[in-house]
């Protein structure tokens, strides 16, 4: 049935088919519309068959209802009869829908066309506008540039204007100063003129003209002592000559100086040239592409040899001078180019060498650094220790400590010195004592001697008198020595006298023992003492005899032999003295 309905309206069917074909994605879409009917047939035949009518119906109704159209088929009853009206309506609706769709499609296509054309148009306009923008930008920059230049120009013109104004001002100032100077001068001249006029008037009025005069006591001689000469042509010529001589000598001096200077400078130039040539020639092996220069250098050397031989004459010639300066210039240029080349080489080498030699150089560099660091550290330590020591030496102490410490080095020595000093002092005292003793002893001795002499004299007298029959009467007159009378008459004291003397060395009471034998001498006793009859006496006399020689020696041995025996009196004193002597020493 659907086939037949569809056959009636072929063009619409075509449309419907095309739309149905479009609704359902199918590979048949690409086929042309001319072959549609066949396909349609083919499609329809495949979609709906007699067997699946119900299914098709339900499917179609579903689809239709999904499209929002009233349902085509009512599922009421079980009849499979379609509502033709509904179906036609549906079909019509579908056709309307389709038409609408087509229209919208058309509209949309139109819209799309329109929009695409709009787009094109807009693109076109945008490119145009961009170009315009570019153009205007360029114009703008151009204008800005012009403006800048104009501003610069304005500034420079302003500067010029300022300068001109300043110049004008300066000129005005100059004019003003000149004017004031002129005015000043004018006034001065006018004042002088007035003075002159007054003076002239005064002179005209003044009758008495004071003449010029010189009043000299006597003429004095000329400074150089010579006589003045008359003014003649000769003298004038002489003056001229002298003047020219002065000028000439001045020029001479100047010329000589300039010559010397010139010679020195030339020498310097020569030296420079030689040095430059030597430098350049020594670099010969390193230059590879300077063959032509070698020849020049050779030529120069030859020249040099030539020059040095004729130096003095050649150098004063203009040509030689020029040659010298030219050659120097040439050498200098060569040297400059050489140095530049070297510089380039060095820089290139440095760049090229940097990577290769980096490691090596760095190593050595680091080694060097380490060594230096070590050295620095050592030095620092050294300085530190020195500093510490210095601090110790110069740090401030407490006063006691300071004094102690200042003395500490000398302490031992001081102690030693003190001891020595003590001993020396003691010794000195002892010596003093002894000296005193000696002096006293000497005094005593002299006294005793005197007394002894007196006694001797008296004794001799007495003896002499004793020898005579009337000797006894004079006995008591014997001992006239003071000491003898004064001091003890007991023998006991005499015995103890020496001890006393020893005990009291300062107390020289040596006369005491002396007086002892004096007080009671008997001839018998005296004989042995006089060594006339040597006897076994007590130790004392023996000692006395022993000490006789000593005492005689002591007393300077001027005692005659007969007085020797009397020396025993002094023996005590001498004995004691010697005893003292021995005891002390």
């Amino acid at each position, binding site marked *: 049935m659907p086939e037949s309905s569809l056959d009636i309206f072929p063009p619409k069917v075509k449309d419907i088919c095309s739309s149905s074909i479009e609704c359902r994605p199918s590979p048949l879409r690409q086929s042309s519309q001319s072959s549609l009917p066949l396909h349609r047939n083919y499609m329809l035949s495949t979609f709906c068959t007699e067997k699946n009518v119900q299914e098709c119906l339900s499917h179609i109704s579903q689809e239709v209802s999904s499209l929002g159209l009233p349902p085509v088929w009512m599922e009421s009853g079980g009849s499979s009869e379609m509502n033709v009206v509904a179906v036609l309506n549906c079909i019509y609706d579908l056709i309307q829908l389709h038409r609408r769709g087509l229209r919208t499609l058309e509209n949309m296509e139109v819209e799309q066309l329109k929009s695409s054309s709009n787009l094109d148009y807009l693109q076109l306009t945008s490119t145009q506008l961009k170009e315009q923008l570019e153009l205007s930008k360029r114009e703008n920059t151009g204008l800005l540039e012009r403006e800048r230049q104009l501003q610069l120009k304005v500034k420079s013109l302003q500067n010029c204007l300022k300068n001109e104004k300043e110049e004008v001002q300066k000129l005005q100032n100059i004019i003003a100063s000149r004017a004031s100077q002129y005015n000043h*001068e004018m006034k001065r001249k006018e004042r002088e003129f007035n003075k002159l006029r007054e003076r002239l008037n005064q002179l005209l009025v003044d009758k008495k003209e004071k*003449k010029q*005069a010189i*009043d*000299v006591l006597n003429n004095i001689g000329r400074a150089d002592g010579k006589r003045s000469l008359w003014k003649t042509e000769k003298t004038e010529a002489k*003056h001229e000559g002298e003047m020219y001589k002065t000028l000439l000598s001045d020029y001479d001096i100047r010329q000589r100086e300039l010559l010397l200077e010139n010679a020195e400078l030339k020498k310097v130039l020569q030296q420079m040239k030689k040095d430059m040539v030597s430098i350049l020639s020594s670099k010969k092996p390193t230059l590879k592409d300077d063959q032509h220069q070698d020849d020049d250098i050779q030529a120069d050397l030859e020249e040099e040899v030539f020059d040095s031989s004729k130096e003095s004459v050649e150098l004063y010639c203009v040509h030689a001078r020029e040659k010298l300066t030219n050659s120097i210039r040439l050498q200098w240029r060569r040297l400059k180019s050489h140095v530049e080349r070297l510089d380039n080489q060095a820089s290139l080498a440095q760049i090229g060498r940097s990577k290769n030699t980096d490691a090596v150089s760095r190593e050595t560099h680091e080694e060097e650094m380490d060594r230096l660091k070590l050295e620095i550290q050592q030095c620092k330590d050294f300085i530190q220790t020195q500093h510490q020591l210095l601090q110790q030496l110069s740090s401030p102490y407490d006063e006691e400590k300071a004094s102690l410490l200042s003395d500490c080095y000398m302490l031992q020595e001081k102690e030693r010195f003190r001891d020595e000093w003590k001993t020396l002092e003691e010794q000195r005292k002892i010596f003093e004592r002894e000296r005193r003793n000696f002096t006293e002893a000497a005094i005593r001795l002299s006294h005793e001697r005197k007394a002894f002499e007196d006694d001797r004299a008296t004794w001799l007298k007495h003896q002499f008198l004793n020898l005579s029959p009337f000797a006894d009467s004079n006995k008591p007159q014997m001992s006239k020595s003071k000491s003898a009378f004064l001091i003890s008459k007991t023998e006991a004291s005499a015995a103890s006298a020496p001890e006393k003397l020893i005990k009291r060395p300062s107390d020289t009471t040596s006369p005491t023992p002396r007086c002892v034998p004096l007080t009671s001498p008997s001839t018998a006793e005296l004989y042995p003492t006089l060594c006339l009859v040597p006897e076994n006496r007590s130790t004392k006399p023996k000692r006395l005899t022993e000490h006789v020689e000593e005492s005689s020696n002591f007393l300077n041995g001027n005692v005659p032999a007969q007085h020797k025996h009397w020396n025993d009196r002094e023996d005590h004193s001498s004995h004691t003295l010697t005893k003292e002597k021995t005891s002390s020493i």
Partner: protein
Amino acid sequence: MNFSEVFKQSNQLCKVSPDGKYLATCVQYRLVVRDVSTLQILQLYTCLDQISHMDWSSDSLFILCAMYKRGLVQVWSLEQPDWHCKIDEGSIGLVSSRWSPDGRHILNTTEFHLRVTVWSLCTKAVSYIKYPKACQKGIDFSRDGCYMALAERRDCKDYVSVFVCDDWHLLRHFETETQDLAGLEWSPNGCVLAVWDSCLEYKVLLYSLDGRLLSTYSAYEWSLGVKSVTWSPSSQFLAIGSYDEKVRILNHITWKKIAQFEHIATINNTKAVVYKEVEKRPAVGSDDLSLHNITIGTTLFNTQSKYEICPPPVQVPVVKPDPDRANPKIGVSTLAFSSDSRYLATKNDNMASVVWVWDMQKMSLLAVLEQTSAVRCFQWDPRRPRLALCTGNTKLYLWSPAGCVSVQVPTEDQQTWNSCFMTLA
């Protein structure tokens, strides 16, 4: 440094004899001659009027005393105190008087520069020189005393006459190319005469002894020109100080400028040493200001001063001169070479308290001495490179390449004392 006791002198007339043995001072109308070493008064002369000018003759035997008001010149002899000489110019008046180099002639310039009268003390003869020019430096004698150059003005033109001092014979007479000759100076070797124009025109002309023009030098046009000119003792350099605060050095071989020294207000040169005088007054407490202290202590007002070295940049005090006045106080007015020509000392008038010392070997600034007050004058030691300067106070300042020192001079008044420098042997 030892100072003698102060003795009076008037009018800044105090001169040491050329042989260095005597010192002559003028007090009013008296002339006192002392021995330099002992300062004993050797001679005392009395003139007829107040002495305006006093000068020794070159052989130190005679002294001239000029009394300008009276028009008199009296000459005294040192050897014969009884000898007298009086020159009376009469009605013609006297403006300046000077010795000739041989010490036997006196040149008197009459009033209004009418003429120069040459009086001979040997022959009592008189010579006249007409038309001398009244300018900054119109007469100059060459150093060897042989020639005298005199500026003349005739018919509104400048001339220079060269005379032989022996017999006053006119050797040369030539016109100079100046507008208004201001001065002339012989070079120390006596062969070149430098002639310069007035300040309205910068022009320095160099003439040879025989009158030939050797060279002309003009640094610029129009502005005020040359203020001072000096030769170096070796005759190698000619230093020209001008109103534009610059010194230009010409060399004697080409007579072209070899160096230009500028006196700029801000010194940035690191090689130059800038000495600045610093005064310190002794601090006075209020209780010290009793009359007693003031009358006794002149040290109260005596300020100690020493030099400080200022690091660059240094600002130099500048005084702008009055633009309306003539002869403005601007420009290099004083130039002096040291005796060995190694140093040049200059003073710029608008930096009046500053003395600049330039090294002539390096042609650069060597030292700058900034004082507390304006420098009055300075002079070089004739033997050593030592500069002495004074500023009108009681101190003497000395500079040498080794350093700078200020010395107090024991005077009671703080007046200007005469800087008659005779340096010590």
